């Protein structure tokens, strides 16, 4: 086995991660230096840029879970399954970011961290579903069983969220509606938002790809262990010692 030298050059995953971090710093500069301060809400409104971008990134990651799971159920593609696994973890991270930033924003504006609004409720449900997805992956037998069960959970989860969202929204709502498409933002804010969203999506994509690489290596390690481990299931009874 070859040992890599300690001063190994950055591989392409390292470079991609560094680029994503640099892009996020650019977005942060735009949010804090370029975008104007909101007249009504003050500086806290700057949460908006990352809050909405993280939510969109999470939806994208969960779409990867849905498509990956569906492809896996169709033809058993390991690549699709690994992408689904990667998407679930990354989506969960971005959902957490969305929820936490939303709560921090809600406290000064709504006067409370949490309210049982349609958007908040369905996002929380989304979080629990994909946390369950990751638990299935951990608890089911690795391989075919885990992949199949998780694919089913991922598909049901993706369908459940719009249902929860719309069924709750028919009765009450507090979270603001889509303001991007309503043309309610000044151009500097709009530019900052689109820049932040693009950078966040790049970050999410890089995270999915790196996670995909980790899953591939983990699958390979599992394979190696399976090939080299002694077979212990069908041990024959030892012969009686003859005196």
């Amino acid at each position: 086995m070859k040992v890599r030298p300690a001063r190994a050059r950055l591989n392409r995953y390292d470079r991609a991660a560094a680029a994503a971090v640099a892009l996020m710093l650019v977005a942060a500069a735009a949010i804090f230096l370029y975008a104007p301060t909101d007249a009504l809400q003050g500086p806290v409104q700057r949460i908006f840029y990352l809050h909405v971008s993280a939510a969109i990134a999470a939806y994208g990651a969960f779409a990867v879970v849905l498509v990956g799971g569906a492809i896996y159920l169709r033809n058993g593609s390991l690549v699709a399954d690994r992408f689904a696994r990667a998407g679930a973890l990354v989506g969960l991270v971005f959902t957490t970011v969305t929820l936490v930033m939303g709560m921090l924003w809600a406290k000064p504006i709504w006067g409370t961290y949490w309210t049982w609004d349609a958007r908040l409720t369905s996002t929380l449900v989304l979080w629990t579903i994909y946390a369950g997805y990751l638990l299935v992956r951990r608890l089911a037998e690795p391989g075919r069983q885990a992949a199949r069960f998780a694919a089913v959970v991922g598909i049901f989860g993706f369908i459940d969220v719009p249902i929860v969202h719309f069924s709750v929204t028919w009765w009450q709502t507090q979270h603001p509606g889509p303001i991007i498409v309503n043309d309610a933002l000044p151009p500097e804010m709009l530019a900052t938002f689109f820049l932040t969203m693009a950078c966040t999506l790049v970050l999410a994509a890089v995270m999915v790809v790196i996670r995909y690489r980790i899953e591939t290596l983990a699958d390979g390690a599992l394979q190696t262990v399976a090939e080299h481990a002694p077979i212990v299931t069908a041990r024959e009874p030892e012969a009686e010692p003859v005196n």
Partner: protein
Amino acid sequence: MTNSFAVAFAVARKDLRAEWRTRELVPALAQFVILALVIANFGFQIDARNAPSIAPGILWLVLVFAGLVAFGRAFAAEREQASLEALLMTPASPVAIFAGKAMAATLLLVGCEAVLLPALALFFGTPLSVQVVAAVFVATIGMASLGCLFAAMVARVRARELLLPLLTLPLWIPFIVAGGQAVQVAMGASGSYDQAMALLVDFDILFLVLTSLAARFVLDE
């Protein structure tokens, strides 16, 4: 097609007969329901004035957790005697077998509701109207199809007692949203009962179709 229905009914009949002979699950669930109502009584300060606003919440909480217990047991006998593999080795389609298991589990949960709803009316003085019964029953159909799907899934997974609630509860929430609304209206809150019931029926149809599509992947493992 008729063959599939015959298989489903045969599986359901087998499960119900096993329950009738052992009489384990329904009495246990009935006792669970009564205990949950006792706990609710101490957890909330319930009197005649606030009962109509608290009782719907108690109803759904108790029903959801009783349902988890019931579906957790749905595949217990199969697991303990490894008979699911034998069932799946027969030429019967996995979907038909799943449908049979789901029908039996639904009926057992209805048996538990037959204790819960009168007990709720008796202890908290809320009306036991046709509207309440209809809402609970319509919600039960879709909840049971989902619950049974995940019960089949976790039957062969480690730590299944942990996983079943975590997977099932988020997907039951649509039923609780609409069913909660329907029962609240039936107990005197403002809102549209018909809209909530229409939503429940929609969810039933949607999840019945989805679970029957997914059953193949879960059972055929």
